[in-house]
C-alpha cells in the first residue's frame, strides 16, 4: 500500500515539477513576444522544440495572442499578428537604418514623417534642430536625390497651420556655428520672447514673427545666451514658462539648446508599456542616429533624469537581436 502511495506521490511531484517547468516556459515565451523586438532564440528553443500538446497549452494559456474560435480551436488574433510583425521587423529596420549614410537616414526619416504618419512633426523638428548645419545641408542634398523634391517644398505642402512657417524655416536654416554672440541682441531678444510667451493666451507664440525669426535663424550659442538672459528679464527659467506654452515651442527650444534631455525623454517614452507604434520607433531612431554623435552624453543625462542606466532599461524591455544591436551600439568605445 505504502509503496503505491509513494509511487503516486512521486508521480504527482514529477508532474508538479513538469508543471513548474511548463509554467516557466510559458512565461519565457510570453516575454519573448512582448516588449520591443522578439527574442528569436527563446522562441526557437522553446516553441521550436515543442510537441503538439505543449503548443496547444501555449495557445490555450496565451489568451492575449489566441482567441477561442466558435469551431473549437484556438485562433491567432489577427491584430496581434500585425503587432508581432512590427516587432519581428524592428531589428531589420534598425540594422538598415544603422548601415545607412547619415544624410540618407535623415532624408528618409523626414520623408516618412511627412507622408506616412499624420501629425508626426516631432521627427522633423528633431532633425532640423539637433543636427549640425552641415549635417542638415547633407540631409537636404540627399532629399533631392531620393525624392526629386526639396525638403522645404515637401514640408511646406504637407504641414499646415501655424506649424508650417516654423518647420519650413527650421529645415531651411543654415545656422552660424561659431561662438561669437552679440549679448545686446540676445538680451533684447530675450525680452521679445518673454513678451510673446506672456501674451500666449491671446496669441500663440509660434505665430509671432519675432519668435519665429529668433528661433529659426539665430545660432545655437546665441540662443543659449538668450535663455541665460531670459531669467534676468522675466524672473523665471525659460523652461518653466515654456512648459505651459505651446508644445511645439517647448520641443523646439529643447531640441535646440538641450538635445540630450530631449533625446532622453523621447527614449523613455518609447520604452513605456503604453507607448504606441510611432512612439516606440523613437528608440531605434534615437540610438541609431546619435550613436556616432552624442550617445554617451544622452546616457548620462538619462541616468541623471531617471535614476536608471539606459542600457539597463533597454536590457529589461527589449528582446533578441534587436536588443543586442542596440546594446552593441551603446557600448562601443
Amino acid at each position, binding site marked *: 500500500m505504502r509503496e503505491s502511495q509513494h509511487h503516486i506521490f512521486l508521480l504527482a511531484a514529477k508532474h508538479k515539477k513538469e508543471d513548474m517547468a511548463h509554467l516557466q516556459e510559458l512565461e519565457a515565451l510570453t516575454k519573448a513576444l512582448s516588449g520591443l523586438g522578439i527574442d528569436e532564440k527563446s522562441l526557437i528553443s522553446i516553441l521550436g522544440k515543442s510537441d503538439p500538446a505543449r503548443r496547444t497549452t501555449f495557445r490555450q494559456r496565451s489568451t492575449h495572442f489566441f482567441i477561442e474560435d466558435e469551431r473549437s480551436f484556438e485562433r491567432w488574433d489577427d491584430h496581434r499578428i500585425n503587432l508581432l510583425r512590427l516587432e519581428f521587423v524592428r531589428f531589420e529596420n534598425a540594422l538598415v537604418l544603422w548601415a545607412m549614410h547619415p544624410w540618407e537616414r535623415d532624408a528618409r526619416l523626414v520623408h516618412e514623417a511627412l507622408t506616412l504618419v499624420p501629425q508626426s512633426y516631432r521627427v522633423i523638428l528633431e532633425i532640423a534642430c539637433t543636427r549640425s548645419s552641415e549635417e542638415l545641408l547633407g540631409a537636404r542634398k540627399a532629399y533631392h536625390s531620393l525624392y526629386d523634391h*526639396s525638403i522645404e517644398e515637401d514640408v511646406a505642402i504637407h504641414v499646415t497651420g501655424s506649424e508650417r512657417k516654423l518647420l519650413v524655416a527650421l529645415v531651411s536654416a*543654415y545656422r*552660424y556655428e561659431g561662438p561669437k554672440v552679440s549679448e545686446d541682441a540676445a538680451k533684447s531678444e530675450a525680452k521679445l520672447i518673454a513678451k510673446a510667451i506672456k501674451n500666449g493666451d491671446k496669441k500663440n507664440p509660434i505665430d509671432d514673427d519675432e519668435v519665429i*525669426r529668433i528661433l529659426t535663424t539665430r545660432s545655437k550659442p546665441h540662443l543659449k545666451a538668450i535663455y541665460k538672459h531670459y531669467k534676468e528679464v522675466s524672473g523665471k527659467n525659460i523652461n518653466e514658462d515654456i512648459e505651459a506654452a505651446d508644445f511645439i515651442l517647448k520641443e523646439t527650444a529643447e531640441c535646440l539648446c538641450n538635445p540630450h534631455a530631449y533625446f532622453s525623454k523621447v527614449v523613455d517614452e518609447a520604452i513605456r508599456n503604453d507607448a504606441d507604434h510611432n512612439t516606440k520607433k523613437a528608440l531605434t531612431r534615437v540610438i541609431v542616429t546619435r550613436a556616432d554623435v552624442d550617445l554617451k552624453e544622452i546616457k548620462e543625462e538619462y541616468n541623471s533624469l531617471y535614476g536608471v542606466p539606459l542600457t539597463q532599461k533597454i536590457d529589461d524591455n527589449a528582446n533578441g537581436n534587436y536588443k543586442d544591436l542596440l546594446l552593441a551600439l551603446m557600448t562601443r568605445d
Partner: protein
Amino acid sequence: MATLKVPAHVPPPSEDAEQLHKAFQGWGTNESLIISILAHRNAPQRNLIRQTYAEAYGEDLLIALDKELSSDFERSVLLWTLDPAERDAYLANEATKKFTSSNWVLMEIACTRSSVELFKVRQAYHARYKRSIEEDVAYHTTGDFRKLLVPLVSAFRYEGQEVNLTLAKSEAKILHEKISNKAYNDDEIIRILSTRSKAQLNATLNHYNNTFGNAINKNLKVDPKDEFLKLLRATIKCLTCPEKYFENVLRLAINKLGTDEWALTRVVTTRAEVDMQRIKEEYHRRNSVPLDRAISGDTSGDYEKMLLALIGHGDA
C-alpha cells in the same frame, strides 16, 4: 554664356601678382595694367592670384587695390576680383545695412543663383560675417518683405528638370485665386515661389498664362507704386527669365538721370562669367543699341574701360 575674355595663354599667377604689384608702385597707379590682367582672368585664376600676391607681398590684394583705387572704378575692380560666393555675401550684407539697404539685391542673389551657388554664398557669409545670411535678412526686414525674402535666401531648390503637370495646374489655380482676391502676400504664394524648383515654377507659370490668358506679372501690375508687388514681379522674373530681369536693371540704371553705377557695376561683375552674353543680346533686342555703346555713352575713364572689358569688348 559668359562674356569674360581670357587669353589663350595665361601667365602664371606669380607673374600676374608681380605685374599687379608693379602697377601699384610709384606715383599714381597703372589702372590699364590692372584692367588688362584682372578683367581677363576667371574666378579660379583670380583666387590664385590673390593667394600668390598675399604670399609674395604679405598683403591681401583687395586691400592693396582699396588703397590705390577710388570711386566707381575701385568698386568694380574689388567686386570683380572677389570670388563669386564672397562677392554675393558682400553684396547681401551691404544690402541689409541701413543706408545701403536693398531688398532687390537680396532677392536677385537668392533667385538668380543656382542652389549650389546660393549655398556657397551662405557658407561665405558665415566665414566673413560670423552670422548666417538668414538671420541678418530676417533682422533687417519686416512684414511682407521678411516673409518673402527669408525663405528665398534659405531655399535649396531641387535642380532637376522633372515637372509634375498636375501640380503645375493646381498651383497655377492657387496663384490665380490668391491674386484675384488681392492676397498678394498669401502664404501659398510665398510657399510656391520660395520652395518649388525653377523647372516646376516655369511649368506652373506657363500653365497660368495658358489658362488665364495673362502672364502672372501682368496680373500683378495692379498698383505700380506698391513696392511689395514690384518685388514679387521681379522675383518671378528672376526665377524664370533672369536675362530679361538683368536687361531691365541695366536699362533703368543707364537711362536714369545720371547713372545708377551701383546697379550697373553689380550686374556686370556678377554676370560677366555667367550669362552676360544672353543679357547683351536681350539688351540689344530691347533697346536697339548694343550694350557697349550704351555703357560708353554713360560712363567714362577707367570705370568705363573696366566694364567694357568685362562685357567682352575688345580682345582678351
